[in-house]
């Protein structure tokens, strides 16, 4: 820390703490000390304060203690000459700034209702989203975990002009990073520049406008703090590990455009404690020695052209980007972009037409050959809908029939990562759009084939030697391919249905998440997919074949320890070793004894309802109260981070339809409550499973929030409808 920076940090921190004190007094005067403070749908209170101090702020008066602590942390600035060390004190001032900023920004929800949109994208008249809720944090967390988003850039200030802003945002997205924006320079914000440049903002496009104020970057750090608590299994208040987790695993940095004020220095000092360095365009002093951050702490005078590359290097990040020969930008950061009616040149398949995508092994494959049979995009009128069949033929010495659907399903990701291409559904429910801009940039149907060719080689090069793609856009051709594909889809379903845990002697692990949840191990069996819903047993098998040293490894079952609960010696050994001894044993089919741990990416959580002799299952999108007395966000706090919590289980949606769904505890008949939305989405799968379990009318007897959210009321409802759980043996 140069002395100049330390002086500015400390001055800025004093300003923030004073502002927070004023705002808090104002809130006490107007709303009263007992008024609730609720950030949107989170189980982590004010996450930075909660993560670093363990203090739970639930009411306005609860802000007094952390703010008093911030005041205590505030040092005097360094003397003109003969100064005493200022790095430690300036970093303390940075942390004080964070506490003050979190209080200032959280109070907006009380003092300035409507200041934030509380949505995941800007509204017509408001750009500023405010705090990310836990749903966003967990959904996006998966991307941070699997590496499709290695980190985030926290931007403050404004680029020299709109064009540069757009250019930098694009570059950051191509490096797969999230872009969090707060604060202005000279009244202009980077987010406003992007809007002016016609760029779509919101969580989906990874360009997140948090706040017009620099203090709003507290939402960036709140996101980072929750990552440590949710995925890293760090306990609230264990500040050392919250910060170390972020330094080691969350590759974030601050980009400061324009003038750096005392307040910005103060906030940047807070970020440095997280290991997030600042890269500035202006000519400010630098802090180059290593230590608190992995490499430099402050790097300045960086040209806008170089800033993204420089930032990535300073943060010590390696981003591997697959080169795909298309005339539009290509990166996972474009996956969430939406293309609305009026914005697309052409729509393919979907509800108004027909189509499919179909990948199969073939002989005589000519690698790199892409054929468009039928009209190309240039032959099509703007705004029309056409049928499409994307037929991919592959060959390779190590290619197996079982890998066909895995490759095929990846088309969804591969297409979406191209800017201006939207892909939904799979198989014969595929639905795609190509934007006007992409068309204008020269994107054609042929490029869809090139994307497949490039990505199959990049991602599946171990098993695929040759890839040839034919794109049909004439109705009769599409129908011909569809007919052939339908047969294959049916065969694949049969094959998947015949795979049981008993029929194989090897499971597959998934430790992809260990970049984020270092002690969590997923064991994927044919009848129990990974808890994030992204990986089934075949995926694990294929991933291992393709990358024998990767995150998916074969786990030989070994001796059976407990057949009913699904415990095998080989699995235990593997889990013990790879959880660094944290988990000695686990039962695949029980949530009561030694249940499987989770990273934090689970789609749903099941938890026991003791009075009802059953369990409830809640999905992460459900924001309401549940009969367990906890919302999803709170429940999630007790299951993530690689910890075994008997009675609680994070799992995939699909697992609910498996015959092995908590089979040792009584199976699906234990399911007594779930959110209405989840129930309807899962109805078909649940009904099939219920029928197999001998309770064909079970699904209608499952209580939802419409009937009850108190456990005693749930019990009344169950009694009324005669839910089978009540007749079963006691769960304990």
């Amino acid at each position: 820390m140069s002395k100049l920076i330390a002086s500015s940090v400390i001055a800025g921190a004093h300003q923030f703490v004073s502002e927070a004190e004023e705002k808090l007094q104002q809130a006490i005067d107007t709303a009263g000390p007992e008024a609730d403070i609720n950030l949107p749908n989170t189980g982590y209170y004010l996450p930075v304060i909660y993560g670093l101090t363990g203090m739970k702020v639930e009411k306005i008066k609860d802000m007094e203690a952390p703010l008093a602590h911030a005041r205590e942390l505030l040092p005097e600035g360094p003397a003109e000459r003969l100064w005493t060390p200022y790095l430690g004190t300036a970093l303390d001032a940075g942390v004080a700034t964070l506490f003050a900023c979190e209080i200032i920004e959280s109070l907006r929800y009380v003092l300035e209702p409507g200041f934030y949109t509380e949505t995941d994208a800007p509204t017509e008249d408001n750009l500023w989203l405010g705090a990310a809720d836990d749903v966003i944090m967990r959904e996006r967390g998966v991307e941070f975990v699997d590496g499709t988003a290695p980190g985030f850039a926290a931007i403050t200030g404004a680029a020299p002009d709109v064009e540069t802003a757009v250019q930098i945002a694009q570059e950051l997205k191509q490096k797969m990073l999230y872009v969090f924006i707060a604060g202005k320079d000279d009244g202009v914000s980077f987010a406003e520049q992007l809007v002016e440049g016609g760029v779509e903002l919101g969580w989906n496009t990874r360009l997140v406008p948090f706040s017009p104020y620099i203090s709003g970057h507290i939402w960036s750090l709140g996101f980072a703090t929750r990552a440590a608590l949710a995925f890293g299994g760090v306990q609230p208040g264990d500040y050392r590990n919250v910060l170390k987790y972020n330094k080691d695993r969350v590759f974030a940095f601050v980009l400061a455009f324009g003038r750096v004020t005392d307040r910005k220095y103060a906030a940047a000092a807070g970020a440095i404690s997280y290991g997030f360095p600042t890269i500035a365009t202006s000519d400010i002093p630098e802090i180059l020695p290593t230590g608190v951050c992995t490499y430099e702490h402050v790097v300045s005078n960086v040209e806008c052209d170089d800033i993204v590359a420089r930032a990535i290097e300073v943060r010590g990040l390696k981003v591997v980007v697959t080169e795909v020969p298309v005339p539009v930008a290509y990166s996972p950061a474009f996956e969430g972009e939406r293309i609305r009616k009026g914005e697309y040149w052409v729509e393919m398949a979907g509800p108004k037409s027909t189509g499919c995508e179909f990948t199969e092994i073939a002989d005589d494959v000519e690698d790199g050959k892409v054929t468009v049979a039928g009209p190309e995009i240039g032959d099509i009128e703007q705004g029309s809908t056409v049928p499409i069949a994307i037929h991919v033929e592959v060959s390779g010495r190590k290619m197996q029939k079982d890998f066909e659907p895995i490759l095929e399903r990846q088309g969804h990701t591969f297409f979406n990562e191209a800017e201006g291409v939207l892909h939904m559904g799979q198989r014969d429910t595929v639905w795609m759009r190509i934007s006007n801009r992409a068309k204008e940039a020269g994107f054609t149907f042929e490029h869809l084939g090139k994307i497949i060719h490039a990505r199959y080689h990049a991602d599946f090069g171990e098993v695929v030697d040759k890839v040839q793609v034919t794109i049909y856009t004439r109705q009769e051709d599409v129908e011909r391919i569809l007919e052939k594909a339908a047969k294959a889809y049916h065969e694949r379903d049969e094959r998947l249905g015949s795979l049981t845990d008993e029929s194989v002697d090897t499971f597959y692990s998934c430790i992809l998440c260990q970049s984020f949840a270092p002690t969590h191990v997923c064991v994927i069996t044919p009848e129990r997919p990974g808890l994030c819903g992204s990986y089934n047993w075949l995926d694990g098998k294929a991933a291992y074949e393709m990358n024998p040293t990767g995150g998916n490894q074969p786990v030989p079952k070994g001796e059976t320890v407990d057949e009913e609960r699904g415990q095998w010696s080989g699995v235990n050994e593997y889990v013990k070793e790879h959880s660094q001894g944290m988990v000695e044993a686990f039962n695949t089919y029980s949530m009561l004894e030694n249940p499987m741990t989770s990273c934090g990416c689970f789609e749903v959580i099941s938890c026991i309802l003791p009075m009802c002799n059953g369990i409830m299952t809640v999905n992460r999108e459900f924001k309401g109260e549940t009969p367990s007395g906890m919302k999803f966000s709170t429940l999630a706090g007790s299951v993530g981070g690689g910890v075994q919590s008997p009675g609680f289980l994070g799992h995939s949606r699909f697992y609910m339809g498996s015959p092995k769904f908590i089979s040792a505890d009584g199976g699906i008949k234990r399911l007594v409550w779930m959110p209405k939305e989840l129930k309807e989405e899962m109805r078909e799968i649940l009904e099939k499973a219920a029928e197999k379990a001998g309770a064909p009318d079970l699904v209608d007897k499952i209580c939802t929030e419409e009937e009850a959210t108190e456990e005693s009321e749930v019990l009344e409802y169950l009694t009324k409808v005669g839910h089978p759980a009540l007749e079963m043996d006691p769960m304990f």
Partner: protein
Amino acid sequence: MSDSEETKPKKKKEEPRAKSIDPAALEVIAKAGAEGISTVFSRVDEMKACPIGAAGSCCQLCAMGPCRLVGKNAEEKTGICGATHGTIGARYMVRAIAGGVAAHSDHGRDIARTLLAVSKGNVQGYSIKDPDKLYRVAEMMSISTDGKEMNDVAAEVAQKALDNFNGVAGDELTYVSRAPQKRQEIWRKLGLVPRGVDREVVESMHRTHVGVDQDADHLLDQGMRTSLADGWGGAMLATDLSDVLFGTPKPLISQANLGVLKEDEVNIIVHGHEPTLSEMIVAAAQDPEVIEYARSKGAAGINLAGICCTANEVLMRHGIPPAGNFLHQELAIITGAVDAMIVDVQCVMQALQPLAEKFHTKLITTSPKAKIPNATHVEFDEEHALDIAKDIVRMGVDNYVNRGEVAIPQYTGDLVAGFSHEYINYMLGGKYRASFRPLNDNIMNGKIQGAVAIVGCNNPRVTQDEGIIYLVRELIKRDILVVQTGCAAHASAKHGLLTPETMEMAGDGLKEVCEAVGMPPVLHLGSCVDNSRILTILSQVVEEGGLGDDISDLPVAAICPEYYCEKALAIGTYAAASGAYVVFGVRNPVADCTEVVDIMSNGWEKKVGGQLVFEPENEKILEMVMSHIQKKREALGIHEEKERVLLDMAARREL
């Protein structure tokens, strides 16, 4: 290792060496010379060191001798009992070490006894100033604190500390467990783990008695074990318990040198070593009633200053300015401005009283362990500590009116002191990210090449402060972080090297780190017992990771350029036995005992990874230390610039 200067007659023809490089000292030495006042600086010219004893060739352990092993074929000669040069030299070293350990550790024991008295409430003026540290110390001592009153914890800590002296703490001193695991294993394997401070000192005295242990290597092992009882015992306990009682130091600014004495105030100097008394003197000197009393005598106030390690204790915790180091004790009196000099134990010259009698200064001895003929003795005890301290200060005040001519040399150096190991840990990351990581990282990336402790005394046989200042300047220029304690720290303070502005004199890498942290490139860690802080820091640096797994792997060294006393040899030995490369200046006290010289250098390096060597030439010391650091950097593989490691997801999973 070359012989001492005094043994070479040809040196006599050379130009007389400067007495000091400190202008304040030179001014007063000149005054003394002009007035015919005898000082250590004049006496050293009047008496050459005995050349036989100076090189370790004299044995006076029994009445069959003294035996001197000199002359033709000196190396083959033995004492009357048959003792070889090796045995005589080793016995000398072991006895010197035992003497030094006894001094530091007796100091530590007194602090422990004070803490015990505080816990029982049998004291006046003392309290537990740093309860957090008390609890940390309790934890390190495996004393459970659950649900206990603070005083009960303090009593247990004090008792456990006392047990370390008595040797009833078990087979190993408690703090041995603070060393890196590998270091502990080395000690255990060699049987070097001290079993009790007193026990090791007693055994050393026994084994060096005539007719007992007569194997140089075996004797020197006992020397190492005894020294470790100081570094990881008496001294470390003294440091920790002083922090508990008087507060853990953090940075503060002050000034050093004779210029801190004030013409219009009552000047009281605390001189000696233990903080127990000086803490109370500080309190008494700030007492409004006492200050008022001083005013009533026509003084503008009471000005407290220190000399030797007492100065360091009150500097580190209160910013009381040091008036100078060991060789300044007489010079301070010669200014005519010192109204009282309060002394306790160690490094207090008997010459002070006859000198004080030439001026108005009142020399007050206070320790029940140390009296000086004709000095005023006011015996100090903890039960009436503050009352006694006030009485003593009042004696100084009363003496103010007796002043004659006053000539205070107007030289001071600004300084920043107060670098406890706890603060260094804090300053590198703040409360939330405190750790030694940044230090390790910057040593690994070469911005800091290594760290060197420049510690110890003054010795009138060499130019005062010259070696210390030369080495400090040259080392920081070479990107070596310097840490200091004792009188060596005062030398740097007087010459303004303990200021953050000194970073301008440092190499680019070190300067960059100093600028980032806001620290001087030369850190003042405290008194001589606070050399134990260096052991703690080195252990924590090892634990932090990336620089090997033992202290002997680190690119560090220790230099005692102007040593004079047994305590210095004790410290040097425990540093070497802990794995450090240690160089002493002045002369080799066992130069003639080649076997001993070889054991302490090559032998110890093989055994414990550290060594103790002697080299009078400062330029040579610099070269030796730099080459040692380079050797260690090479062994660690950090001597070349590494490419930046960029992490992808797979790499993050491996973390």
